[in-house]
């Protein structure tokens, strides 16, 4: 298959394309977020996207010679050369091969982690059953700034016609890491257009579900009980903030750098996290990579202690 033509989020286990025989793509259906594989997909949503594809097909006027997309196959990744002949390639490995290629060339950066941003990243929540219908617009978001409202219908985002969550994700995947994204929509039947202003970091999402990243997302091997509300109050810590007491099972890698039983972990790199110990561990997994050096901020006997660790 030509990966340049059928480009999608290869961490997924299901994705649909609607296209003409000349390989003009009308639309896509599929996609997910960290909450689960099916949180964005419904039969009604698929039906809606199919209907929009059929309408696009009816309107379609063939070009004399549609431009052919250069062929790039899975086997063209250099990394596949080290696989044994006839080995199967899993979908998510395509992303791993790409990462290895970029690292070999010295061009890989952390920006590569933030693939297929959610429409929520620009402030838009789409309806699962009608994929161009705006269900909500986040306050102070790029979409809110240009005046998009709940009930509006997206027409195009970054030049891509929108009939599904997958269309929106694809359009945002192609958007710059900062700058402007063109958007057009219908408001009470009136055509509107604008550009979304996006700042550095807008593409970030929770990537911990992605199988292609399992080998580079770190674990923080801590264990213990969250402090009670009374204990937090006594230490002057907000009741909603994550703070836990390390139990007697101190992981050898952490014992080596100085973490002790009874230490109260209150932050990472000076940054407090809302929630519980699990939220703090999740924060590390979402925001750092294996090999990163971080500081655990700890209270021990009423004193502040900093413990430097290298994430694994």
């Amino acid at each position, binding site marked *: 298959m030509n990966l340049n033509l059928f480009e999608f989020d290869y961490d997924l286990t299901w*994705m649909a394309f609607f296209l003409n025989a000349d390989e003009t793509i009308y639309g896509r259906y599929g996609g997910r977020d960290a909450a689960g594989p099916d949180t964005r997909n419904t039969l009604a949503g698929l039906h809606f996207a199919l209907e929009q594809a*059929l309408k696009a097909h009816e309107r379609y006027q063939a070009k004399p010679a549609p431009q052919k997309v250069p062929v790039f196959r899975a086997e063209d990744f250099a990394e596949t050369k080290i696989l044994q002949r006839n080995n199967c390639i899993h979908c998510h490995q395509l992303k791993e091969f790409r990462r290895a290629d970029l690292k070999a060339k010295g061009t890989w950066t952390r920006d590569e982690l933030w693939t297929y941003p959610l429409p929520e990243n620009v402030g838009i929540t789409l309806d699962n059953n009608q994929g161009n219908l705006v269900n909500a617009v986040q306050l102070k978001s790029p979409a809110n700034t240009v005046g998009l409202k709940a009930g509006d219908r997206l027409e195009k985002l970054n030049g891509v016609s929108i009939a599904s969550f997958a269309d929106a994700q694809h359009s945002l995947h192609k958007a710059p890491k900062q700058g402007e994204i063109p958007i057009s929509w219908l408001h009470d039947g009136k055509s509107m257009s604008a550009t979304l202003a996006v700042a550095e970091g807008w593409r970030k999402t929770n990537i911990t579900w992605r199988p292609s990243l399992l080998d580079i997302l770190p674990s923080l091997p801590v264990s213990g009980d969250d402090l009670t509300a009374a204990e937090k109050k006594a230490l002057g810590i907000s009741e909603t903030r994550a703070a836990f007491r390390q139990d007697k099972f101190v992981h050898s890698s952490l014992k080596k750098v100085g973490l002790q039983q009874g230490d109260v972990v209150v932050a990472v790199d000076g940054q407090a996290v809302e929630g519980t110990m699990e939220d703090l561990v999740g924060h590390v997994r979402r925001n750092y990579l294996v090999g990163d050096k971080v500081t655990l901020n700890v209270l021990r006997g009423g004193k502040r202690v900093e413990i430097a660790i290298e994430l694994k």
Partner: protein
Amino acid sequence: MHRLLLGVSVLLIAAAQTPAQPQKAFGWLKDYEAGNAEARRTGKPIFLVFRCEP
């Protein structure tokens, strides 16, 4: 020769208002090139599904 562990299914789709066609068995094709050729012959759009086989 490596094989992409990816199931591909192709279905030709038609609008509900399309005049009734002679009854024939329909279903998913497993070969994209065959599906594309059939789409060219019939003028119908393609519904292409990728699924990762465990």
